[in-house]
Protein backbone atom coordinates (compact mmCIF):
# COMPACT_ATOMS: atom_id res chain seq x y z
CA UNK A 1 0.00 0.00 0.00
CA UNK A 2 1.41 3.39 -0.89
CA UNK A 3 2.25 5.12 2.36
CA UNK A 4 2.11 8.52 0.75
CA UNK A 5 -1.53 8.12 -0.13
CA UNK A 6 -2.51 7.94 3.48
CA UNK A 7 -3.95 10.98 5.09
CA UNK A 8 -2.01 12.66 7.80
CA UNK A 9 -4.59 11.76 10.40
CA UNK A 10 -4.15 8.13 9.57
CA UNK A 11 -0.40 8.42 9.73
CA UNK A 12 -0.62 10.00 13.16
CA UNK A 13 -3.00 7.36 14.33
CA UNK A 14 -0.73 4.65 13.09
CA UNK A 15 2.13 6.08 15.07
CA UNK A 16 -0.12 6.09 18.10
CA UNK A 17 -1.37 2.57 17.60
CA UNK A 18 2.17 1.38 17.24
CA UNK A 19 2.49 2.30 20.88
CA UNK A 20 -0.64 0.34 21.79
CA UNK A 21 0.00 -2.29 24.35
CA UNK A 22 -0.18 -5.80 22.97
CA UNK A 23 -2.98 -6.73 25.32
CA UNK A 24 -5.37 -4.36 23.57
CA UNK A 25 -4.71 -6.37 20.43
CA UNK A 26 -5.45 -9.57 22.31
CA UNK A 27 -8.65 -8.19 23.74
CA UNK A 28 -9.99 -6.89 20.49
CA UNK A 29 -9.22 -10.15 18.70
CA UNK A 30 -10.97 -12.22 21.36
CA UNK A 31 -13.98 -9.97 21.51
CA UNK A 32 -14.17 -9.84 17.73
CA UNK A 33 -13.98 -13.59 17.21
CA UNK A 34 -16.33 -14.60 19.98
CA UNK A 35 -19.86 -15.50 19.03
CA UNK A 36 -21.03 -14.43 22.48
CA UNK A 37 -20.38 -11.45 24.69
CA UNK A 38 -17.57 -12.28 27.11
CA UNK A 39 -17.23 -11.28 30.73
CA UNK A 40 -14.02 -9.96 32.18
CA UNK A 41 -13.34 -13.20 34.05
CA UNK A 42 -13.53 -15.30 30.89
CA UNK A 43 -11.28 -12.87 29.08
CA UNK A 44 -8.82 -12.89 31.96
CA UNK A 45 -8.60 -16.68 31.88
CA UNK A 46 -7.14 -16.61 28.41
CA UNK A 47 -5.03 -13.51 28.73
CA UNK A 48 -1.61 -13.09 30.29
CA UNK A 49 -1.92 -13.26 34.07
CA UNK A 50 -0.35 -9.91 34.80
CA UNK A 51 -2.91 -8.09 32.67
CA UNK A 52 -5.40 -5.70 34.24
CA UNK A 53 -8.35 -6.80 32.14
CA UNK A 54 -10.86 -4.28 33.47
CA UNK A 55 -8.52 -1.38 32.79
CA UNK A 56 -7.70 -2.69 29.35
CA UNK A 57 -11.40 -3.08 28.54
CA UNK A 58 -12.04 0.49 29.54
CA UNK A 59 -9.15 1.69 27.43
CA UNK A 60 -10.41 -0.32 24.48
CA UNK A 61 -13.92 0.98 25.01
CA UNK A 62 -12.62 4.52 24.93
CA UNK A 63 -10.62 3.80 21.78
CA UNK A 64 -13.67 2.50 19.98
CA UNK A 65 -16.05 5.10 21.36
CA UNK A 66 -15.80 7.31 18.31
CA UNK A 67 -15.64 4.51 15.79
CA UNK A 68 -18.30 2.88 13.69
CA UNK A 69 -18.13 -0.08 16.03
CA UNK A 70 -18.26 0.38 19.79
CA UNK A 71 -17.25 -1.86 22.62
CA UNK A 72 -20.31 -2.18 24.79
CA UNK A 73 -21.14 -3.91 28.01
CA UNK A 74 -24.32 -5.94 27.96
CA UNK A 75 -25.47 -7.60 31.15
CA UNK A 76 -21.95 -7.39 32.48
CA UNK A 77 -20.40 -8.93 29.35
CA UNK A 78 -18.42 -7.22 26.66
CA UNK A 79 -19.00 -7.26 22.94
CA UNK A 80 -18.52 -5.16 19.85
CA UNK A 81 -21.64 -3.61 18.41
CA UNK A 82 -22.35 -1.29 15.53
CA UNK A 83 -22.53 2.28 16.81
CA UNK A 84 -26.15 3.08 17.55
CA UNK A 85 -26.17 6.10 15.26
CA UNK A 86 -25.22 3.81 12.39
CA UNK A 87 -27.87 1.17 12.95
CA UNK A 88 -29.48 2.28 9.72
CA UNK A 89 -26.59 0.61 7.95
CA UNK A 90 -27.89 -2.72 9.17
CA UNK A 91 -31.03 -2.54 7.17
CA UNK A 92 -31.56 -2.57 3.51
CA UNK A 93 -34.67 -0.92 2.31
CA UNK A 94 -36.42 -1.76 -0.86
CA UNK A 95 -39.75 -0.88 -2.35
CA UNK A 96 -41.75 -3.93 -3.15
CA UNK A 97 -44.71 -3.61 -5.41
CA UNK A 98 -47.62 -5.69 -4.26
CA UNK A 99 -50.99 -6.24 -5.81
CA UNK A 100 -54.15 -6.02 -3.79
CA UNK A 101 -56.11 -9.23 -3.53
CA UNK A 102 -59.54 -9.48 -5.08
CA UNK A 103 -61.13 -9.41 -1.62
CA UNK A 104 -59.17 -6.30 -0.70
CA UNK A 105 -60.18 -4.57 -3.92
CA UNK A 106 -63.86 -5.35 -3.36
CA UNK A 107 -63.67 -4.20 0.23
CA UNK A 108 -61.89 -1.02 -0.76
CA UNK A 109 -64.51 -0.28 -3.42
CA UNK A 110 -67.35 -0.88 -0.97
CA UNK A 111 -65.71 1.44 1.55
CA UNK A 112 -65.29 4.06 -1.17
CA UNK A 113 -68.91 3.92 -2.37
CA UNK A 114 -70.66 3.19 0.90
CA UNK A 115 -68.61 5.10 3.44
CA UNK A 116 -68.99 5.50 6.30
CA UNK A 117 -69.40 1.78 6.55
CA UNK A 118 -68.81 -0.79 9.28
CA UNK A 119 -67.18 -4.12 8.89
CA UNK A 120 -70.51 -5.89 9.34
CA UNK A 121 -72.02 -3.74 6.59
CA UNK A 122 -69.12 -4.57 4.28
CA UNK A 123 -69.66 -8.24 4.98
CA UNK A 124 -73.34 -7.84 4.29
CA UNK A 125 -72.73 -6.18 0.93
CA UNK A 126 -70.04 -8.66 -0.08
CA UNK A 127 -72.09 -11.57 1.17
CA UNK A 128 -69.03 -13.12 2.81
CA UNK A 129 -67.38 -12.53 6.12
CA UNK A 130 -64.25 -10.47 5.78
CA UNK A 131 -60.94 -12.07 6.67
CA UNK A 132 -59.10 -10.16 9.33
CA UNK A 133 -56.22 -9.55 7.00
CA UNK A 134 -58.23 -7.71 4.38
CA UNK A 135 -58.95 -4.61 6.43
CA UNK A 136 -55.42 -4.74 7.84
CA UNK A 137 -53.95 -4.71 4.36
CA UNK A 138 -56.17 -1.82 3.37
CA UNK A 139 -55.20 0.11 6.49
CA UNK A 140 -51.58 -0.59 5.58
CA UNK A 141 -52.07 0.96 2.16
CA UNK A 142 -53.12 4.14 3.89
CA UNK A 143 -56.12 4.33 1.59
CA UNK A 144 -58.75 3.76 4.27
CA UNK A 145 -59.09 4.97 7.82
CA UNK A 146 -61.39 4.36 10.71
CA UNK A 147 -63.36 7.56 10.90
CA UNK A 148 -65.77 7.06 13.77
CA UNK A 149 -68.06 4.63 15.48
CA UNK A 150 -71.60 3.78 14.52
CA UNK A 151 -74.21 4.68 17.11
CA UNK A 152 -75.42 1.11 17.31
CA UNK A 153 -75.04 -1.88 19.59
CA UNK A 154 -71.37 -2.74 19.83
CA UNK A 155 -70.44 0.71 18.56
CA UNK A 156 -68.61 -0.72 15.52
CA UNK A 157 -65.92 1.32 13.80
CA UNK A 158 -66.89 3.07 10.61
CA UNK A 159 -64.42 3.21 7.76
CA UNK A 160 -63.86 5.74 5.04
CA UNK A 161 -61.31 6.57 2.40
CA UNK A 162 -58.39 8.95 2.78
CA UNK A 163 -56.78 11.62 0.66
CA UNK A 164 -54.11 9.08 -0.19
CA UNK A 165 -56.86 7.02 -1.78
CA UNK A 166 -57.89 9.91 -4.01
CA UNK A 167 -54.25 10.58 -4.84
CA UNK A 168 -53.47 6.99 -5.74
CA UNK A 169 -56.45 6.58 -8.03
CA UNK A 170 -56.12 10.05 -9.46
CA UNK A 171 -59.54 11.16 -8.30
CA UNK A 172 -60.25 14.81 -7.78
CA UNK A 173 -62.93 13.91 -5.27
CA UNK A 174 -65.11 10.95 -4.40
CA UNK A 175 -67.97 12.46 -6.31
CA UNK A 176 -66.21 11.70 -9.58
CA UNK A 177 -66.45 7.97 -8.89
CA UNK A 178 -68.69 6.67 -11.66
CA UNK A 179 -72.32 5.93 -10.88
CA UNK A 180 -74.48 3.00 -11.91
CA UNK A 181 -75.25 4.23 -15.40
CA UNK A 182 -71.60 4.97 -16.09
CA UNK A 183 -70.52 1.57 -14.87
CA UNK A 184 -73.17 -0.02 -17.04
CA UNK A 185 -71.99 2.08 -19.93
CA UNK A 186 -68.45 0.89 -19.32
CA UNK A 187 -69.70 -2.66 -19.56
CA UNK A 188 -68.84 -3.43 -15.96
CA UNK A 189 -72.44 -4.39 -15.24
CA UNK A 190 -73.92 -6.70 -17.78
CA UNK A 191 -77.46 -5.44 -17.45
CA UNK A 192 -78.96 -8.36 -15.60
CA UNK A 193 -79.39 -6.28 -12.49
CA UNK A 194 -82.59 -6.71 -10.51
CA UNK A 195 -85.05 -3.89 -10.33
CA UNK A 196 -84.37 -1.55 -7.49
CA UNK A 197 -80.64 -2.10 -7.61
CA UNK A 198 -79.06 1.07 -6.32
CA UNK A 199 -75.64 2.49 -5.79
CA UNK A 200 -75.02 5.18 -3.22
CA UNK A 201 -73.64 8.57 -4.09
CA UNK A 202 -70.27 8.37 -2.35
CA UNK A 203 -68.87 11.10 -0.13
CA UNK A 204 -65.80 11.21 2.04
CA UNK A 205 -66.86 14.30 3.91
CA UNK A 206 -64.95 13.91 7.19
CA UNK A 207 -67.81 15.42 9.16
CA UNK A 208 -69.42 12.68 11.19
CA UNK A 209 -72.87 11.54 10.11
CA UNK A 210 -75.84 11.63 12.42
CA UNK A 211 -75.41 7.98 13.27
CA UNK A 212 -71.69 8.29 13.89
CA UNK A 213 -69.80 9.30 16.95
CA UNK A 214 -66.13 10.27 17.11
CA UNK A 215 -63.26 7.89 17.65
CA UNK A 216 -61.84 7.89 21.11
CA UNK A 217 -58.29 8.11 22.18
CA UNK A 218 -56.93 4.60 22.08
CA UNK A 219 -58.92 3.51 19.05
CA UNK A 220 -55.89 4.27 16.93
CA UNK A 221 -53.64 2.19 19.15
CA UNK A 222 -55.49 -0.98 18.34
CA UNK A 223 -53.64 -1.47 15.14
CA UNK A 224 -56.46 0.17 13.31
CA UNK A 225 -54.65 3.34 12.44
CA UNK A 226 -53.12 3.68 9.01
CA UNK A 227 -49.79 1.98 9.57
CA UNK A 228 -47.45 4.36 7.94
CA UNK A 229 -45.03 4.16 10.84
CA UNK A 230 -45.48 0.45 11.44
CA UNK A 231 -44.60 -0.40 7.90
CA UNK A 232 -41.23 1.16 8.43
CA UNK A 233 -40.45 -1.30 11.16
CA UNK A 234 -41.31 -4.38 9.22
Amino acid at each position, binding site marked *: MPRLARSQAVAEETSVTELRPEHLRLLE*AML*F*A*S*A*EPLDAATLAERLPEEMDVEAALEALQQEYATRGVNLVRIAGKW*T*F*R*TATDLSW*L*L*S*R*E*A*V*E*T*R*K*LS*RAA*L*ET*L*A*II*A*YHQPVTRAEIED*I*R*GVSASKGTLD*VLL*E*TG*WIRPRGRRKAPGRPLTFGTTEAFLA*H*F*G*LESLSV*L*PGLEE*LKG*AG*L*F*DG*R*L*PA*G*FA*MPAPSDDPALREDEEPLEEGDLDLGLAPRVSR*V*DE*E
Partner: protein
Amino acid sequence: MMIAQPPFTTDIVAERAEDEPALIVDVEGFEGPLDLLLTLARNQKVDLAKISILALADQYLAFIEQARQLRLELAADYLVMAAWLAYLKSRLLLPETEEAEGPTAEDMANSLALRLKRLEAFRAVAQELMGLPQLSRDVFARGAPEPIVDIKHPQWKATLYDLLSAYAAQRQKQALAHVELPHRTVWSLADARTALERLIGSATDWTRLDQYLIAYVVEPSQRATVMASSFASTLELVREGLIELHQHAAFAPLYLRKRAAENQADASGRTPPVATNEG
Protein backbone atom coordinates in the same frame (compact mmCIF):
# COMPACT_ATOMS: atom_id res chain seq x y z
CA MET B 1 -26.60 -34.44 2.74
CA MET B 2 -27.82 -31.95 5.22
CA ILE B 3 -25.65 -33.01 8.12
CA ALA B 4 -23.37 -30.18 9.07
CA GLN B 5 -19.82 -31.27 8.98
CA PRO B 6 -16.78 -29.58 10.34
CA PRO B 7 -14.87 -27.58 7.79
CA PHE B 8 -11.96 -29.26 6.22
CA THR B 9 -8.41 -28.56 7.05
CA THR B 10 -5.44 -29.53 5.26
CA ASP B 11 -3.32 -31.05 7.92
CA ILE B 12 -1.58 -33.91 6.33
CA VAL B 13 -2.40 -37.24 7.78
CA ALA B 14 -0.47 -40.40 7.22
CA GLU B 15 2.54 -38.56 5.93
CA ARG B 16 5.19 -41.12 5.31
CA ALA B 17 8.43 -40.28 7.02
CA GLU B 18 11.16 -39.49 4.60
CA ASP B 19 13.67 -41.65 6.33
CA GLU B 20 11.47 -44.67 6.00
CA PRO B 21 13.49 -47.47 4.37
CA ALA B 22 12.44 -47.44 0.76
CA LEU B 23 12.47 -51.12 0.22
CA ILE B 24 10.01 -52.06 2.86
CA VAL B 25 7.39 -53.48 0.61
CA ASP B 26 4.39 -51.46 1.54
CA VAL B 27 2.74 -50.39 -1.64
CA GLU B 28 -0.24 -49.24 0.35
CA GLY B 29 1.83 -46.39 1.68
CA PHE B 30 2.49 -44.95 -1.75
CA GLU B 31 0.32 -42.69 -3.77
CA GLY B 32 1.03 -44.53 -6.98
CA PRO B 33 4.11 -45.38 -9.00
CA LEU B 34 5.30 -41.78 -9.39
CA ASP B 35 5.21 -41.39 -5.67
CA LEU B 36 7.16 -44.58 -5.30
CA LEU B 37 9.69 -43.42 -7.88
CA LEU B 38 9.98 -40.07 -6.16
CA THR B 39 10.69 -41.78 -2.88
CA LEU B 40 13.30 -43.99 -4.49
CA ALA B 41 14.85 -40.93 -6.12
CA ARG B 42 14.98 -39.11 -2.81
CA ASN B 43 16.88 -42.02 -1.45
CA GLN B 44 19.52 -41.42 -4.08
CA LYS B 45 20.17 -38.29 -2.04
CA VAL B 46 20.76 -36.24 -5.12
CA ASP B 47 19.09 -33.43 -6.92
CA LEU B 48 16.24 -34.69 -9.01
CA ALA B 49 17.89 -33.11 -12.02
CA LYS B 50 20.89 -35.33 -11.58
CA ILE B 51 19.29 -38.62 -10.77
CA SER B 52 20.14 -41.57 -12.85
CA ILE B 53 16.96 -42.69 -14.48
CA LEU B 54 18.63 -45.98 -15.20
CA ALA B 55 19.45 -46.55 -11.54
CA LEU B 56 15.96 -45.46 -10.59
CA ALA B 57 14.41 -47.88 -13.05
CA ASP B 58 16.51 -50.68 -11.58
CA GLN B 59 15.38 -49.86 -8.07
CA TYR B 60 11.78 -49.67 -9.07
CA LEU B 61 11.90 -52.97 -10.90
CA ALA B 62 13.64 -54.58 -7.94
CA PHE B 63 10.94 -53.27 -5.67
CA ILE B 64 8.21 -54.65 -7.85
CA GLU B 65 10.01 -57.97 -8.16
CA GLN B 66 10.22 -58.22 -4.41
CA ALA B 67 6.55 -57.46 -4.06
CA ARG B 68 5.72 -60.16 -6.56
CA GLN B 69 7.83 -62.70 -4.73
CA LEU B 70 5.82 -61.89 -1.65
CA ARG B 71 2.72 -62.46 -3.78
CA LEU B 72 1.47 -58.98 -3.03
CA GLU B 73 -1.20 -57.77 -5.30
CA LEU B 74 -0.02 -54.69 -7.10
CA ALA B 75 -2.30 -52.15 -8.63
CA ALA B 76 -2.20 -52.03 -12.41
CA ASP B 77 -0.63 -48.55 -12.29
CA TYR B 78 2.50 -50.00 -10.70
CA LEU B 79 2.77 -52.79 -13.23
CA VAL B 80 2.29 -50.48 -16.19
CA MET B 81 5.08 -48.28 -14.84
CA ALA B 82 7.25 -51.33 -14.35
CA ALA B 83 6.69 -52.38 -17.96
CA TRP B 84 7.41 -48.90 -19.20
CA LEU B 85 10.58 -48.65 -17.12
CA ALA B 86 11.76 -52.04 -18.35
CA TYR B 87 11.23 -50.82 -21.90
CA LEU B 88 12.99 -47.54 -21.16
CA LYS B 89 15.88 -49.41 -19.57
CA SER B 90 16.30 -51.59 -22.64
CA ARG B 91 16.19 -48.51 -24.87
CA LEU B 92 18.74 -46.71 -22.73
CA LEU B 93 21.10 -49.69 -22.84
CA LEU B 94 20.84 -50.20 -26.59
CA PRO B 95 22.42 -47.86 -29.11
CA GLU B 96 19.84 -45.59 -30.71
CA THR B 97 19.08 -46.44 -34.30
CA GLU B 98 19.00 -43.56 -36.70
CA GLU B 99 15.66 -44.40 -38.22
CA ALA B 100 13.87 -44.88 -34.90
CA GLU B 101 10.52 -43.16 -34.84
CA GLY B 102 9.07 -41.30 -31.92
CA PRO B 103 10.91 -39.98 -28.92
CA THR B 104 14.41 -41.10 -28.20
CA ALA B 105 15.23 -42.99 -25.02
CA GLU B 106 16.81 -39.82 -23.70
CA ASP B 107 13.62 -37.88 -24.36
CA MET B 108 11.68 -40.52 -22.49
CA ALA B 109 14.06 -40.42 -19.55
CA ASN B 110 13.91 -36.64 -19.46
CA SER B 111 10.17 -36.73 -19.59
CA LEU B 112 10.06 -39.06 -16.62
CA ALA B 113 12.49 -36.89 -14.69
CA LEU B 114 10.37 -33.85 -15.40
CA ARG B 115 7.22 -35.59 -14.31
CA LEU B 116 8.92 -36.44 -11.06
CA LYS B 117 10.09 -32.88 -10.63
CA ARG B 118 6.62 -31.61 -11.41
CA LEU B 119 5.00 -33.86 -8.85
CA GLU B 120 7.56 -32.80 -6.30
CA ALA B 121 6.94 -29.15 -7.13
CA PHE B 122 3.18 -29.55 -6.67
CA ARG B 123 3.78 -31.25 -3.37
CA ALA B 124 5.90 -28.34 -2.29
CA VAL B 125 3.26 -25.75 -3.15
CA ALA B 126 0.61 -27.92 -1.53
CA GLN B 127 2.64 -27.67 1.66
CA GLU B 128 2.94 -23.92 1.26
CA LEU B 129 -0.77 -23.65 0.67
CA MET B 130 -1.46 -25.61 3.81
CA GLY B 131 0.92 -23.38 5.67
CA LEU B 132 -1.32 -20.39 5.04
CA PRO B 133 -3.43 -19.20 7.93
CA GLN B 134 -6.76 -20.89 7.53
CA LEU B 135 -10.14 -19.47 8.36
CA SER B 136 -11.66 -20.70 11.61
CA ARG B 137 -8.41 -22.45 12.46
CA ASP B 138 -5.84 -19.68 12.52
CA VAL B 139 -7.77 -16.56 11.73
CA PHE B 140 -11.33 -15.78 12.56
CA ALA B 141 -14.15 -13.79 11.13
CA ARG B 142 -16.48 -11.80 13.32
CA GLY B 143 -17.99 -14.26 15.74
CA ALA B 144 -21.27 -12.46 16.01
CA PRO B 145 -21.95 -10.71 12.74
CA GLU B 146 -24.86 -8.34 12.84
CA PRO B 147 -27.26 -9.34 10.13
CA ILE B 148 -28.52 -6.84 7.67
CA VAL B 149 -32.26 -6.76 7.81
CA ASP B 150 -34.14 -6.43 4.59
CA ILE B 151 -36.90 -3.91 4.94
CA LYS B 152 -39.45 -4.18 2.21
CA HIS B 153 -41.66 -1.18 1.80
CA PRO B 154 -44.77 -2.45 0.17
CA GLN B 155 -46.03 -0.26 -2.56
CA TRP B 156 -49.56 -1.29 -3.24
CA LYS B 157 -50.70 -1.36 -6.76
CA ALA B 158 -54.26 -1.12 -7.95
CA THR B 159 -55.85 0.77 -10.79
CA LEU B 160 -59.17 2.54 -10.78
CA TYR B 161 -60.33 0.00 -13.33
CA ASP B 162 -59.40 -2.86 -10.95
CA LEU B 163 -61.35 -1.11 -8.23
CA LEU B 164 -64.47 -0.39 -10.27
CA SER B 165 -64.60 -3.76 -11.96
CA ALA B 166 -64.19 -5.51 -8.62
CA TYR B 167 -67.02 -3.41 -7.20
CA ALA B 168 -69.35 -3.90 -10.11
CA ALA B 169 -68.64 -7.60 -10.36
CA GLN B 170 -69.25 -8.30 -6.73
CA ARG B 171 -72.32 -6.07 -6.42
CA GLN B 172 -73.82 -7.71 -9.47
CA LYS B 173 -73.04 -11.16 -8.16
CA GLN B 174 -74.63 -10.33 -4.83
CA ALA B 175 -77.66 -8.67 -6.42
CA LEU B 176 -78.32 -11.67 -8.63
CA ALA B 177 -77.76 -13.99 -5.71
CA HIS B 178 -80.53 -12.09 -3.91
CA VAL B 179 -82.90 -12.49 -6.83
CA GLU B 180 -82.26 -16.17 -7.08
CA LEU B 181 -82.61 -16.71 -3.38
CA PRO B 182 -85.19 -14.14 -2.24
CA HIS B 183 -86.09 -13.73 1.35
CA ARG B 184 -89.17 -15.84 1.88
CA THR B 185 -90.81 -13.01 3.75
CA VAL B 186 -94.21 -13.25 2.20
CA TRP B 187 -97.40 -11.66 3.30
CA SER B 188 -100.18 -14.14 3.39
CA LEU B 189 -103.49 -13.05 1.95
CA ALA B 190 -104.89 -13.03 5.44
CA ASP B 191 -102.12 -10.71 6.64
CA ALA B 192 -102.74 -8.31 3.82
CA ARG B 193 -106.49 -8.34 4.24
CA THR B 194 -106.22 -7.60 7.92
CA ALA B 195 -103.93 -4.72 7.24
CA LEU B 196 -106.06 -3.31 4.50
CA GLU B 197 -109.28 -3.61 6.49
CA ARG B 198 -107.61 -1.71 9.26
CA LEU B 199 -106.42 0.94 6.83
CA ILE B 200 -109.64 1.34 4.94
CA GLY B 201 -111.40 1.71 8.20
CA SER B 202 -109.67 5.03 8.68
CA ALA B 203 -109.72 6.29 5.12
CA THR B 204 -112.93 7.26 3.47
CA ASP B 205 -111.49 9.26 0.61
CA TRP B 206 -109.54 7.88 -2.36
CA THR B 207 -106.14 6.78 -1.24
CA ARG B 208 -103.23 5.45 -3.16
CA LEU B 209 -102.74 1.80 -2.42
CA ASP B 210 -98.99 2.12 -2.44
CA GLN B 211 -99.15 4.92 0.09
CA TYR B 212 -100.79 2.52 2.48
CA LEU B 213 -98.44 -0.17 1.68
CA ILE B 214 -95.32 1.86 2.04
CA ALA B 215 -95.80 1.93 5.78
CA TYR B 216 -95.52 -1.82 5.78
CA VAL B 217 -92.57 -2.11 3.52
CA VAL B 218 -89.79 -2.73 5.93
CA GLU B 219 -87.18 -3.11 3.25
CA PRO B 220 -87.16 -2.89 -0.52
CA SER B 221 -86.87 -6.61 -0.97
CA GLN B 222 -90.31 -7.05 0.57
CA ARG B 223 -91.94 -4.53 -1.68
CA ALA B 224 -92.94 -7.02 -4.36
CA THR B 225 -94.52 -9.55 -2.07
CA VAL B 226 -96.33 -6.88 -0.09
CA MET B 227 -97.65 -5.34 -3.27
CA ALA B 228 -98.77 -8.65 -4.71
CA SER B 229 -100.53 -9.87 -1.61
CA SER B 230 -102.15 -6.53 -0.98
CA PHE B 231 -103.44 -6.26 -4.51
CA ALA B 232 -104.94 -9.69 -4.30
CA SER B 233 -106.61 -8.78 -1.02
CA THR B 234 -107.85 -5.55 -2.48
CA LEU B 235 -109.54 -7.38 -5.32
CA GLU B 236 -111.18 -9.64 -2.80
CA LEU B 237 -112.40 -6.69 -0.74
CA VAL B 238 -113.84 -5.15 -3.90
CA ARG B 239 -115.61 -8.37 -4.76
CA GLU B 240 -117.10 -8.40 -1.26
CA GLY B 241 -118.29 -4.86 -1.84
CA LEU B 242 -116.35 -3.42 1.03
CA ILE B 243 -114.08 -1.10 -0.94
CA GLU B 244 -113.87 0.62 -4.28
CA LEU B 245 -110.79 0.39 -6.45
CA HIS B 246 -109.78 2.78 -9.19
CA GLN B 247 -106.95 2.86 -11.69
CA HIS B 248 -107.12 5.44 -14.44
CA ALA B 249 -104.57 3.83 -16.75
CA ALA B 250 -102.51 0.70 -17.09
CA PHE B 251 -99.61 0.74 -14.62
CA ALA B 252 -100.97 3.92 -13.05
CA PRO B 253 -101.25 4.04 -9.27
CA LEU B 254 -104.19 2.24 -7.71
CA TYR B 255 -106.64 4.27 -5.65
CA LEU B 256 -109.06 2.76 -3.21
CA ARG B 257 -111.60 3.92 -0.68
CA LYS B 258 -114.01 2.43 1.74
CA ARG B 259 -117.31 1.77 0.18
CA ALA B 260 -119.47 3.71 2.63
CA ALA B 261 -123.19 3.03 2.90
CA GLU B 262 -124.04 6.61 1.88
CA ASN B 263 -121.75 6.28 -1.11
CA GLN B 264 -123.38 3.18 -2.38
CA ALA B 265 -126.17 5.19 -4.04
CA ASP B 266 -123.91 7.13 -6.27
CA ALA B 267 -121.35 4.49 -6.95
CA SER B 268 -119.91 6.48 -9.78
CA GLY B 269 -119.43 9.41 -7.32
CA ARG B 270 -116.32 11.53 -7.38
CA THR B 271 -113.43 10.06 -9.18
CA PRO B 272 -110.01 10.02 -7.61
CA PRO B 273 -107.47 12.61 -8.68
CA VAL B 274 -105.53 11.81 -11.81
CA ALA B 275 -101.98 10.93 -11.01
CA THR B 276 -99.55 13.01 -12.94
CA ASN B 277 -96.07 12.00 -12.32
CA GLU B 278 -96.50 9.49 -9.62
CA GLY B 279 -95.98 5.81 -9.74
